[in-house]
């Protein structure tokens, strides 16, 4: 999808901004259906410099048409402003920029700050405290994170860890409405960033490992009332599966598979939560999102495909009806959530152009999927993979590596990728100019050995001892540029720690990402050459953005503040001697506490 289309989408998304500017940059893979956005005449209504949602556009490209900061001058970048959030824990959110204001949300307690970019030093315009319940902290699995707020139509939409979606007046910070969607008592939390599509706010829950039943809810953006809710397990009527549902593969066809692919009532606690990313194709009027792993049973206790977990749904954006589903990991064995982002693009494949989504999945494969039908066009490993032997394109199913099938008490070694996957939630970026997908990747494998006893709510229980460690090469992370048409890695940069930050890429072919030991980096998007880096106060697990300030200049912003599942050893103060802590992640990163300390801080960079 070209920038012109992106601009159009942006213009549609932000009402009151009828005149979106057009900047025709020649895309490498120009979509045949691209229409020109209306030419902008009034600079005040030019929103091309904004970044109104974490993924920037509905296609989730995280591509900015700005090009003032380029491969030549990026090395001159300096810190323009900093701002301490006053919160520890993992800062995974993207700073949001609209109407000369920057909006940031912290991990629990989910404070929202609006910073006035038109004034020197970006002072706080307003601050909102949602008074998130403290009990939510004991429920969230993998640090008390929040992946960002969303701006639309003069409103900031915020999700809180204690299951509320709150609409705030973007200018004053006053609450317009608040809607409670889930229940901490059931193990539910919300960590994802909402997506606003037309008149609806889409929100999903977290907590698959707590025996939560996953859902996606559409709220009326004006009132906060629930318009529809689509569960990820259970009877077809709950999953909003009806006559329009036409999955591409046979194993997804049948009645009430959300019940019949589970033992007894296991679907009631089956997982399939929706804690990742949502994309939207306005022409097809479809929203796309992935579902988490099945749980919380050991896989031997839930025979079957465990629909509709660890897969991706296409739904009608208005009614929520399911249109197709594809399951990356039927009967998931390894905690390979399917929640990673869908990057929508129109790629030249075969004889023509195909409307696809690109998914760098937890299972280690880069899927190129026809987003009109759910057909997998290609699926290639982008990291070391041993857990499966490939994806059978006829059935759409992974070819299991039987020798690694885990059973409690059995020793299973060298499972790659480890549970956080080739990539976890940390989103990729796609440049229509280079035609490359930029993947912030993990290079981790894991062993299951012995039995570890644990205790919760007065009850002892046991699970496998999981230890993660660096995959082949010894580096635990990698920043990869991938060509989805040629189906190959074009270049990559090895990183000592997993790359747990998002990516932003610009029309001047500069890609930005951060590292867990606190380096913020700019690289040449064509070659991978490192152009600039700056050390920040804490490890970066957030999402960089770039925007045009009120002065007309381009800036780059990112939240530092290590944490999340990978950074729990620092943010949670875990003991590095207990390698199985944080579900085995601590073993892979015992040196992280020496490399960084916790603390949330916003950094804004610009040219001198």
């Amino acid at each position, binding site marked *: 999808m070209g920038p012109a289309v992106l601009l159009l989408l942006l213009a549609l998304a932000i009402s009151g901004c009828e005149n979106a500017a057009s900047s025709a940059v020649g895309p490498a893979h120009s979509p045949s259906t691209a229409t020109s956005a209306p030419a902008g005449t009034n600079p005040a209504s030019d929103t091309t410099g904004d970044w109104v949602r974490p993924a920037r556009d509905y296609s989730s490209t995280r591509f900015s048409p700005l090009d003032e900061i380029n491969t030549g001058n990026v090395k001159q970048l300096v810190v323009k402003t900093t701002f301490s959030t006053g919160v520890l824990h993992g800062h995974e959110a993207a700073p949001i920029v609209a109407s000369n204001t920057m909006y940031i949300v912290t991990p629990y307690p989910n404070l929202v700050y609006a910073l006035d970019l038109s004034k020197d030093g970006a002072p706080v315009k307003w601050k909102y405290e949602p008074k998130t319940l403290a009990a939510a902290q*004991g429920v969230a699995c993998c640090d008390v994170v929040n992946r960002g707020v969303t701006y639309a139509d003069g409103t900031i939409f915020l999700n809180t860890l204690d299951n509320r979606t709150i609409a705030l007046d973007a200018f004053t910070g006053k609450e317009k409405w608040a809607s409670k969607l889930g229940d901490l*008592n059931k193990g539910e939390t919300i960590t994802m960033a909402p997506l606003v599509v037309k008149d609806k706010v889409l929100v999903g829950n977290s907590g698959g490992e*707590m025996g939560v039943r996953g859902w996606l809810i559409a709220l009326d953006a004006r009132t906060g009332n629930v318009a529809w809710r689509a569960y990820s397990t259970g009877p077809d009527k709950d999953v909003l599966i009806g006559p329009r549902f036409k999955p591409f593969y046979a194993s997804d066809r049948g009645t009430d598979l959300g019940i019949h692919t589970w*033992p007894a009532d296991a679907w009631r606690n089956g997982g399939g939560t929706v804690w990742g990313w949502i994309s939207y194709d306005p022409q097809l009027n479809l929203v796309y999102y992935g579902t988490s792993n099945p749980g919380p049973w*050991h896989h031997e*206790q839930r025979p079957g495909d465990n629909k509709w977990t660890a897969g991706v749904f296409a739904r009608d954006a208005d009614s929520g009806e399911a249109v197709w589903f594809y399951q990356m990991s039927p009967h998931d064995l390894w905690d390979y959530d399917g929640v990673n982002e869908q990057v929508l693009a129109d790629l030249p494949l075969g004889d023509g152009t195909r409307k696809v989504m690109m998914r760098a999945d937890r299972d280690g494969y880069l899927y190129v999927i026809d987003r009109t039908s759910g057909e997998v066009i290609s699926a290639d490993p982008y990291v070391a993979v041993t857990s499966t032997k490939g994806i059978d394109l006829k059935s759409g199913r992974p070819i299991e590596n039987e020798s690694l099938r885990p059973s409690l008490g059995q020793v299973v070694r060298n499972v790659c990728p480890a549970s956080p996957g080739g990539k976890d939630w940390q989103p990729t970026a796609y440049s229509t100019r280079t035609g490359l997908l930029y993947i912030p990747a993990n290079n981790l494998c894991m062993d299951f050995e012995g039995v570890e006893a*644990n205790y919760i709510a*007065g009850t002892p*229980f*046991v699970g496998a001892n999981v230890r993660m460690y660096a995959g082949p090469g010894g580096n635990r992370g990698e920043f990869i540029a991938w060509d989805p048409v040629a189906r190959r890695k074009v270049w990559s940069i090895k990183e000592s720690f997993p790359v747990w930050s998002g990516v932003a890429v610009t029309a001047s072919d500069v890609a930005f990402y951060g590292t867990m030991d606190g380096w913020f980096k700019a690289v040449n998007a064509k070659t991978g050459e490192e152009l600039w880096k700056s050390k920040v106060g804490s490890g970066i697990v957030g999402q960089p953005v770039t925007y045009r300030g009120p002065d007309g200049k381009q800036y780059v912003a990112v939240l530092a503040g290590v944490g999340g599942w990978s950074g729990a050893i620092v943010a949670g103060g875990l003991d590095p001697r207990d390698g199985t802590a944080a579900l085995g992640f601590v073993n892979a990163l015992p040196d992280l506490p020496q490399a960084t300390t916790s603390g949330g801080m916003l950094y804004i960079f610009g040219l001198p």
Partner: protein
Amino acid sequence: MRPVFFVSVACVVALAWSDLRGAEALRVCADPNNLPFTNAKGEGFENRIATLMARDLGTRVEYTWFAQRRGFLRNTLSAQTCDIVMGLPVDTDAAWTTQPYYRSTYVFVTRRSRNLHIRSFDDPQLRSLRIGVELVGDDNANTPPAHALSRRGIVRNVVGYSVYGDYRTDSPPSAIIAAVAHREVDVAAAWGPMAGYFAARQPVPLDIVPVQPQVDGRFLPQTFSIAMATRRRDNARHELLEQFIKRRRHDIDRILAEYHVPRVDREQTAPPAEGTR
């Protein structure tokens, strides 16, 4: 599970005991809503044992309340908002456990009127009966009975009940026991202390039988030794607990029996759970 190696140093203990006696409140980390273990009204057996210890010391118990879930130890004991945890399996990594003061077991819970007499995971009846197990909520980690059943291919007729329960209610984890009484399931395989306590409070008589085998396969224990715990290197308090457990063994046993805690470390078993009405 291997018991913590215990060295008693009498003179140090005597000193510690007198130093701490009356000096400060006994700061206990506990869940405010987790009967039969603890609750905010002090009705759990761990509450009772803590009170007994405080009385011995001429002081009072001061609680730090925190749901015993993910982050419990991190936010209480490790954060030094309290000093003692009254119940943890021995050798728990994140704390320093004492010698165990009781050892309990997973049990089968059935309605007495059914005459099922299930004692072993190998009982063929388990292939067809509806079985309730506790759902822990941690991917791939489950209670030992859940694993023992799945090892035998018994999965389709197994129903999970969240170990957290509904925290808004009084006794969150009791749903699985009520499910036996209410005929939602034919049998529950549940952790003994919880099962014993709630079985005695159902409107119909329930039978409680320790599961067999007690170590399933080579590695799957169904019994656990429960100890008190302090922070590592909190030597004085640790010795205090050790001495208390030794001195008050009989009183502790009496309290546990009152709560119908099934024991596997005593000749005498707990009084059978009787229907109270």
